[in-house]
């Protein structure tokens, strides 16, 4: 997995390229925690270039969601592909991590 981060006022956009699986889960969770600790409590994870998600990667997203919510923010996912959507649906976690069509929708949603 490759992780790149765009930082804005109060917002971090993390782009995940490759596979978000066991080997990458810890790195993603640490990156979310770092952004939240720095005050960027709205974290958008761009999964547009994420080829594969497993339950470990999903666990890291949930962990990130917990961190962001604990700081009064949120974690949102955007641009999910077919395999990622399959994992979200089969685990029914699309109720909790509702996919946004694109990053700007996720950043701009005032819910």
């Amino acid at each position, binding site marked *: 997995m490759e992780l790149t981060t765009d930082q804005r006022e109060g917002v971090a956009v993390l782009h995940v390229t490759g596979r978000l699986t066991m080997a990458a889960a810890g790195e993603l969770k640490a990156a979310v925690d770092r952004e939240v600790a720095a005050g960027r409590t709205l974290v958008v994870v761009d999964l547009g270039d994420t080829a594969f998600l*497993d339950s470990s990667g999903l666990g890291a997203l949930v962990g990130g969601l917990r961190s962001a919510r604990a700081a009064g923010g949120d974690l949102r996912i955007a641009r999910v592909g077919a395999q990622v959507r399959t994992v979200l649906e089969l685990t029914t976690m699309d109720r909790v991590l509702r996919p946004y069509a694109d990053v700007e929708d996720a950043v701009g949603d005032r819910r």
Partner: protein
Amino acid sequence: MTAAEGAVELRVDGPAEPGWLDEVHGAFERLWGAAPGVPELDRMRFETAVIEIATNIVRHTTPVGPGPVEATVLLRARAPRLEAELSDTGAPVRVDLDPAPVDDLAESGRGIALVLRAVDSLSLAREGGRNTWRLARDWS
């Protein structure tokens, strides 16, 4: 690679470490290349399930003696069925194949439930001193 008329088989052996998982991902690329008739939905669900079990082996299996746990995955596509057998030389594992649902904000505990929804059958047995998982999914 071709085992029988219309069947495609692939096998990946290695120490039960993250590098083996990369090889299993690579084996799927070859499997789908060699079995182009399998619909995308079935590919995704089956590969997702097998990777979950392979990851479970890497994370949770402990060696019996000196040296690492050795793991093997056998993948087979034979219309209309996808099958996988994963086995390892580790200590006997006990896994609940009917897990209770986890809380929405739990960070783990979803793997086996995900597998059960992604394939038609899943089993775990101790055979010949190896933990042996079998998964199957029929495509339509």
